[in-house]
């Protein structure tokens, strides 16, 4: 019961934030609503028993990535976006496409719900903190991808520096 209430609350916050991101005209409002979405998502992760992921979600996404966005918005002093009609395709092809996509996925999920076991708090993870086992996976089974992503990050940093540097 409590679980469902929490889920509904946070889920509604998520969806509301996302919709707000969609309707807001000023990028900084969109950014903040996205931060809200992410925070709510991290709480939903907690419901799913992934507390470490939740924390990292807050720290990395809300705390770093979105700050970066806000930072850039402030830096470029971006104003409210203009309602230019650049692409009719986006509206007349993409719109229906998205609707169909959403409908299909939702239909698929509900249709296959009988195959799934409902989520109950505490059922997973078995041991009190799954951080250890997560670390085990990350540094044993997924060591190579981990290293590769580290290289990826490095390259991304260099790329960002090169791109953003003003030519002189």
């Amino acid at each position: 019961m409590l679980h469902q209430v929490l889920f509904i609350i946070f889920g509604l916050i998520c969806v509301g934030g996302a919709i707000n991101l969609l309707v807001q005209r000023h990028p900084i409002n969109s950014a903040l609503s996205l931060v809200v979405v992410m925070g709510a998502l991290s709480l939903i992760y907690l419901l799913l028993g992934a507390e470490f992921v939740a924390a990292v979600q807050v720290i990395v996404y809300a705390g770093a990535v979105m700050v970066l966005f806000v930072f850039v918005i402030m830096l470029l002093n971006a104003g409210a976006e203009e309602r230019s009609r650049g692409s009719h395709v986006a509206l007349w092809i993409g719109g229906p496409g998205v609707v169909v996509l959403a409908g299909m996925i939702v239909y698929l999920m509900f249709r296959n719900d009988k195959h799934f076991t409902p989520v109950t708090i505490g059922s997973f993870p078995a041991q009190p903190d799954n951080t250890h086992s997560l670390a085990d996976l990350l540094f044993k089974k997924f060591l190579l991808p981990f290293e590769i992503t580290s290289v990826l990050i490095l390259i991304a940093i260099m790329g960002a520096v090169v791109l953003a540097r003003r030519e002189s």
Partner: protein
Amino acid sequence: MTAFLIAAVVKILLVVFLLLTGVAYMTWLERKVVGHIQNRWGPTRVGPFGLLQPLADGIKFILKEDMVPDSVHKGLYILAPALALTMSLISIAVIPFGENITIAGTTTPLQITGVTRPGSPITDINIGLLIILGVTSIGVYGVALAGWSSNSKYALLGSLRASAQMISYELALGLSLVGVLILAESFSLRHIVDTQSGTWFGFLPRWYIFPQFIAFFIYLMAAFAETNRIPFDLPEAETELVAGYHTEYSSMKFAMFFMAEYVNMITVGCLATLLFFGGWHGPLFGPPLLQALLPVFWFSVKIFVFMFLYIWIRGTLPRFRYDQLMAFGWKFLLPLAIANILVTGLIVALGA
């Protein structure tokens, strides 16, 4: 259940009250100490030794006219200080001050988010440290939005600096803690503190400051930067941009930023104490009640030392230049922290 709720509420109110009072007298202390460092008296008028000065300040803040400049981004302008203060207050919730305490038959841990069941060890939230980090990182928004929403060059520059600085030093801060985490093998603050009980060689307390002094040094620097304190207080460098991100703020909103800053200082101090100075551990003696309260005392003493260090440094050091700040953070602290992690991990791995 009711007892549990009551205990929780009581704890929350108590902690918040103590915290805010602490903040208030922190300001007094700062003015006094800096005053003496600069051969002044500091506040003396209000009350003995100006002890009532914080109260007077508080009243002044509340009674002042709360003016909102035109052409500010209204919503965010109001949201920003609230956000800053809230985030700084939230993080206190996961900080443990001591072991159980039993009052009127109810046993409760000295920690807001801690839970205890009879006959079982205290279980507190197992990612406390991460929560603190996350919350502090959210706190950046307060500063950034404040600067941006108040639609003023000084404020904008200040908040740009602030956010850049905070993002940069968060890295060093987080990485400096990893060393301790490797040793303690847990994110739970309480567990970390427990691992620091006892002594090495009978006399040296088992604090992580000793094996992790490099980490502590890094943490100290990063903490100063995170809290925008001298020598890293560029976001509010009076001589350059009037007051940085809260230039346009007045009265209670300004007070919120003010309090947020000091609460952050205290939080950081608590964290340092918990991670490096063995939390509430200290010599215990006397009657049971004293036995129960001594840990809290030791804890506050350690925090006090830390706060004094803050003030002392403020009275002593000049301010960095901005490029120096960034260079220091990225080119010195970050590599050092990584090296520290590597060495610690290596030693632990070899030891295991």
